[in-house]
């Protein structure tokens, strides 16, 4: 059976295009064809100028994020068979990020926000490597494990209308990672990270739309992480008020 399926792909060639446009391709359909397979088929067999990112093909590298029919998806774990009833499939570059070329997004804004929250173990006093690892029980690990599954694919940023409204918002991925370290029993950097959470661009730009958690391919639930961050920031605000009354301000 040589069934064909129409894939509409967004094109943007910075040298010649003022704005993105749409190009249709016919791809031979099979039951196990992923969007990524379709894009590779187009690039290899039909139009070598098409640009898209991919690497692992197994939802762990996080580089193949695109909008499939207006929803952020990893193209490697999204299958054409699930769109048969909707007719044509439209593939665009991720929402909310600048488009570098075709389906390639510039996610550096997200990466900068990730670095801002210092997503690594912070210790008041580093111990020598020779003294061994910082111990942790399985129960302690369970508290942050889900928030640690992030693969930095950026789908949550494409889904977040508040990041779309204001790219200064640290956003779901970075704030989930901040929470992942704040909840880690080996970490002592929560107070240090608090200043980023406390800001307007921190947890307070979030209005709990919840789409970040719906689109996350790793079930990280950034919306829950951010809103637990709001509770922490709320308590921090009250403590700071109390300290101001006692004549000590953390400014």
């Amino acid at each position, binding site marked *: 059976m040589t069934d064909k399926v129409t894939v509409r792909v967004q094109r*943007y060639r*910075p*040298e010649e*295009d003022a*704005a*993105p446009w749409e190009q249709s391709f016919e791809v031979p359909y099979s039951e196990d064809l992923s969007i990524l397979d379709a894009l590779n088929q187009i690039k290899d067999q039909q139009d070598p100028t098409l640009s898209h990112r991919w690497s692992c093909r197994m939802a762990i590298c996080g580089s193949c994020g695109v909008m499939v029919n*207006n*929803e952020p998806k990893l193209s490697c774990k999204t299958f054409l068979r699930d769109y048969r009833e909707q007719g044509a499939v439209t593939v665009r*570059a991720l*929402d*909310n*990020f*600048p*488009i*570098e070329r075709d389906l390639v997004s*510039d996610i550096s804004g997200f990466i900068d926000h990730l670095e801002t929250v210092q997503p690594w173990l912070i210790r008041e006093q580093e111990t020598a490597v020779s003294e061994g690892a910082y111990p942790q029980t399985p*129960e302690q690990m369970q*508290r942050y494990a889900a928030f640690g599954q992030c693969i930095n694919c950026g789908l949550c940023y494409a889904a977040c*209308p508040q990041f*779309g*409204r204001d790219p200064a918002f640290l956003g779901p991925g970075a704030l989930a990672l901040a929470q992942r370290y704040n909840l880690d029993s080996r970490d002592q950097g929560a107070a240090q990270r608090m200043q980023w959470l406390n800001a307007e661009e921190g947890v307070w730009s979030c*209005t*709990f*739309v*919840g*789409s970040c958690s*719906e689109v996350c391919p790793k079930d990280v*639930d950034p*919306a*829950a992480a951010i*809103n*637990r961050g*709001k*509770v922490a920031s709320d308590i921090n605000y009250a403590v700071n008020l109390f300290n101001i009354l006692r004549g000590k301000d953390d400014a």
Partner: protein
Amino acid sequence: MRKPYVQRQRADWWLRNPAYRRYMLREATALPLFLYSLLLMSGLYQFTRGEAAFLAWLELLRSPWLLALHGMALAAALYHAVTWIALVPKILVIDSDRLRVSPATVKRAHQLGAVTCNAGLLLLALLLLRAAGGN
């Protein structure tokens, strides 16, 4: 040469998918509920002006416009309650060494509490007003 195309959010972004529309509907519950608070305030104000003014306000509540407002406020309050309690377990996380409560239990407890309080309030009002009416 780089020339990234910057995508700007359109004002009608929330019409683009059902999840965003549900979010906007949730936020829009604030409109009838805000008007309802103003209605309660007007009742309180009429009460301060004396019995006749308050009883006139009570009669005013029978008007179709205010019944429509009540209907919208009721729908908004119900939608608000359901969506609010669905999010509670994401914020109220009880997970310490001493006490651990599953998110499903937190949600069920809130649902049960909300149903009890709402039904209790209505029942209390019915009983008190029947008693006050002397029948």
